[in-house]
């Protein structure tokens, strides 16, 4: 708590400059680690009260070596610019109020308007409160994804182009320094390498569009798409594969996000985009999504604190989820058609 006071003062100073005089109310830290945190608060000035979110992001590390391409990660400014372009296109992305500047004293990040709704996957796919809207979510996802994929790349020059082969080599490369050997992981990497699709389609790809990163309202459905920071230019089918990954269904029955059917997702996407969905191409990206989550599980499971002790139990326990995506990968890899 000792660090909270200067943070509050810095935040109040920024808000006074950007929004005019007022008072900081109900500051709550929603998530966070040492260099990355999400805060919720209100700014009460005169006779209005604005509900806001502060996202503090870790500063982007300089690429190591310079020879190998690293996983795409937008700076806070780029992330905010992308969300603004997305909103201009009618996509429900966070509305950016302010991008933090060095003088703000709050590190990297941005302030956005808070959107009310549910992000917890288990509630969205299971709670009775979402029963009425659930059948509509898959179609909504298809429409939103079609809109993301046709965003004007010319206004987003900071987005990196990332082909399937690069994606695979970047993420598989994360395993090498860990010295982690697992036959099913080897199988997954080779299976992907032997099935790389041609890089013949390119659009703006969110790359983390899934249950957990969507704010859902019990009557309106999807009100906001969050977490744009690994967006890139790539194969649009990537986004459909991520959305259908079983690890992101939170126990829900529907292949699409745990809430809907693949058929509804594909049909809505095709109607909205005019592009036909290639189920095998989606399956490739769903397999990639499983492989990437498996690699993330290994990295979290082996994470250590600076003094060498294991990281917190939450991270450590994620290491034991490794076999979930590997099992799902093998199911996808052995479908006969």
């Amino acid at each position: 708590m000792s660090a909270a006071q200067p943070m509050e003062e810095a935040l109040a100073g920024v808000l006074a400059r950007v929004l005019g005089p007022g008072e900081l109310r109900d500051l709550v830290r929603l998530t966070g680690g040492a260099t990355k945190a999400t805060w919720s608060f209100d700014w009460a000035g005169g006779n209005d009260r604005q509900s806001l979110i502060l996202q503090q992001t870790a500063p982007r590390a300089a690429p190591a070596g310079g020879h190998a391409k690293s996983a795409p990660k937008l700076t806070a400014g780029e992330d905010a610019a992308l969300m603004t372009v997305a909103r201009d296109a009618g996509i429900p992305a966070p509305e950016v109020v302010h991008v933090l500047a060095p003088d703000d004293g709050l590190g990297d990040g941005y302030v956005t308007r808070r959107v009310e709704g549910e992000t917890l996957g288990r509630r969205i796919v299971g709670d009775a409160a979402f029963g009425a809207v659930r059948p509509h979510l898959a179609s909504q996802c298809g429409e939103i994804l079609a809109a993301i994929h046709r965003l004007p790349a010319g206004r987003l020059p900071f987005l990196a182009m990332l082909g399937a082969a690069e994606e695979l080599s970047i993420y598989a490369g994360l395993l090498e320094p860990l010295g982690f050997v697992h036959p099913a992981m080897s199988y997954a990497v080779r299976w992907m390498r032997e099935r790389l699709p041609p890089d013949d389609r390119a659009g703006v790809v969110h790359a983390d569009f899934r249950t957990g990163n969507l704010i859902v309202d019990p009557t309106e459905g999807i009100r906001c798409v969050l977490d744009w920071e690994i967006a890139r230019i790539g194969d649009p089918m990537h986004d459909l594969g991520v959305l259908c990954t079983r690890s992101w269904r939170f126990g829900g029955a529907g292949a699409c996000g745990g809430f809907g059917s693949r058929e509804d997702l594909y049909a809505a996407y095709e109607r909205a985009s005019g592009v036909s969905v290639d189920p095998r191409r989606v399956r490739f990206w769903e397999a990639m999504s499983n492989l990437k989550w498996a690699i993330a599980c290994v990295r979290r499971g082996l994470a250590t604190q600076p003094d060498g002790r294991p990281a917190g139990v939450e991270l450590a326990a994620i290491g034991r989820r490794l076999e979930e995506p590997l099992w799902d990968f093998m199911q996808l890899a052995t479908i006969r058609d």
Partner: protein
Amino acid sequence: MPAFVPHAATLLQAAAIDLEREVLPALAGPPRFRARIILNVLRLVARELAQAPRADAAERERLQALLGSGGDALPPLRADLAARIDGGGLPLDDEALLAHLAASLREALAINSPGWAQEP
């Protein structure tokens, strides 16, 4: 192993029951969330103590048959299989390979995530 009383599995079970019935109800917010993770970890380790010996023996037997090797230690056997997969020495549709990978993942999931391999 010394003739401990109680056995590690019993101690873990006692700790898990206590945490769930006596500690969790008194907690709220982030500490409650963390305590639930710790409870799951205790149960996971209890399953590992009970199931790992049989899972290891089954994996060893399959690996020795698949690789035609007589070594007993699992890490080098696994590394050998991984190297043959990486190097292209084994076809990806090899039935014995697929059966081995599925069985090993199923055994691990029975410890780490019971039910995952049964659901669709």
